[in-house]
């Protein structure tokens, strides 16, 4: 049993990180009803952006670089929604899905051309630190930080959506587009803001995954699947669900890796995901959604 404490602890810490990975995708899926297949790739763009900033300005760390990376990625998300994905509103799921798929391919191969296929890591002194609890149990500091930042991000987004005017406008546009328009809300602009915020959250997630594990130009889809897992397990648009989703996925990966060997870590996460997808397509906490 003692053997399992470490993977369980790590799984919980991964859970907070995964929730941060999924929250932006969940927001857009819930609010705009579009699936941003480029979500994972945009995360990795933020990781590379941080990398360039740090190498250019040596006084920056991955954490302080966020001051520049978050607004930059917000702008990217805003523009993508405003000038590209908004053109496909009301045309069903497939056209925006395919456009985002195209975007994902462009980003991956663009990164490959710019940065070569080498593995990268955002270096920070936190990566080698750990708290000792017992001889068999350590808390890796970097994962603790990642988990806490992830949870903080989700709480922040929750308050933003429930307390601020813009947040309420976003939710109004999501609940009933026509009624929101009658109340004087420019829903298309609101969607662009929502995407900007979602991609800003992806930027934070990108920094977190960049400091905790290595990344390549093609790493994006791997995190897209994790983000999807989080949504599928937790349901769309629910913040508590997003945290739960991250937790289930993190734990199933780490425990699966412990039981079946490290090669099967990702696989056990995927299998849990598929089983849940087949049993409860609307998620563990999600309600059945209205058609349309």
């Amino acid at each position, binding site marked *: 049993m003692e053997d399992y404490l470490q993977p369980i602890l790590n799984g919980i810490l991964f859970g907070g990180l995964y929730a941060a990975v999924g929250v932006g995708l969940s927001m857009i899926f819930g609010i705009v009803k579009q*699936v941003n297949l480029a979500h994972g790739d945009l995360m990795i763009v933020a990781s590379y952006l941080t990398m360039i900033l740090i190498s250019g300005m040596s006084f920056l760390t991955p954490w302080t670089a966020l001051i520049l990376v978050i607004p930059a990625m917000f702008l990217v998300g805003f523009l993508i929604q405003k000038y*590209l994905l908004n*053109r*496909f509103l009301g*045309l069903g*799921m*497939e*056209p925006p*899905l*395919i*456009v985002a*798929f*195209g*975007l*994902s*391919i*462009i980003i*991956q*191969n*663009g990164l*490959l*051309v710019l940065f070569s296929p080498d593995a990268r890591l955002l270096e920070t002194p936190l990566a080698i630190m750990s708290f000792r609890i017992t001889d068999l149990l350590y808390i890796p500091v970097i994962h603790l930080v990642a988990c806490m930042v992830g949870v903080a991000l989700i709480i922040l987004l929750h308050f933003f959506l429930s307390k601020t005017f813009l947040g309420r406008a976003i939710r109004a546009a999501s609940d009933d587009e026509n009624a929101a328009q009658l109340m004087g809300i420019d829903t298309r602009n609101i969607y662009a803001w929502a995407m900007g915020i979602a991609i800003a959250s992806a930027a934070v997630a990108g920094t977190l995954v960049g400091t905790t594990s290595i990344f390549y130009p093609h790493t994006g*889809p791997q995190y897209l*699947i994790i983000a*999807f897992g989080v949504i*599928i397990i937790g349901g769309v648009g629910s913040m508590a669900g997003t945290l739960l989703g991250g937790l289930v996925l993190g734990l199933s990966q780490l425990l699966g890796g412990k039981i079946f*060997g490290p*090669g*099967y870590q*990702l*696989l056990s996460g*995927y*299998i849990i*995901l*598929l*089983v849940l*997808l*087949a*049993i409860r*397509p609307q998620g563990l906490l999600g309600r059945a959604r209205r058609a349309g």
Partner: protein
Amino acid sequence: MTNIRKIRMALLVLVGLVLGSVSIFGDQYTKLLLMLAFLYMALGQFWNLLGGYAGLVSLGQQIFIGLGGYTLAVTVLYYGFPIWLGVLTGGVVAVLFALVISPAIFRMSGVYFSIGTWVVAESLAIWFSNWEYVEMGQGLFIKPAKQLSVSQLYYLAMLVGVGSVALVYWVMRSKLGLALMAMRNDPGASETCGVSVFRNKLYCYLISSFCTGLTAGVLYLNMVFIQPYKAFGIDWTVALVFIAIIGGIGTIEGPIIGAVIYVLLQQYLSDYASVSMLALGVVAIIIMLIVPKGIMGTIQEKLGFEILSPRRYL
């Protein structure tokens, strides 16, 4: 009307004769290009059958490509199957796997189906790269395939390509095709009229998986080397989606023109693989913005010109 049909038939026969004689007049390079075009066209047709006609946007066709390729490799290498039987077994294994996963993945609809199929493919990639039986991540070398000449491969690919068009044409002319088009236009209304949505989608999925597995076998006879992350990689589906989108989703001619463009683009930019993928992404987005029906879909709409229409004439 009969005149147009005669001209159309004559045109098709002419195209068939030209393509059939390429192995006599054409050089090695032309044969290889056309062979790839035939195979990608077939794979595009079977993606289109799901995505364009049955409303099942699959991001997991590489499941069947990988299974078809690996079955060929394993049966030919380990059990000494003749090549044709290995290819056929690939199709059978693909369709059996589709049957096994169908109860689960058909509970997912729309986007969930797309992601579900993709996750299945990723899972298989990890499974095969950890499976000693298939040499794990190292991959397998399908040595017996080397004995085939380029002309033999060309005719095999042509058979698969022409067969795929004929099959999809036949499916769309059949009761299943009518049901699919009814479902695509209004799933609720067609179900009320007695169309079993689930069963028809399942038939489509099974046909598509069998043929994709089979086509992949022929493709791997040419590629000779198979590796899990390539065989079950999302790049296959990227290619197929773009072939169908560029040519025209939900048309039979679409994947033909799409495959030709894809193969040419890939060859011209073969020294810059990532640039050619990047170009594909850009082209696909532009097509979605300007002509969402694709090249053939738009031509059909504007000129009313269809070579292979499943439409019935009175």
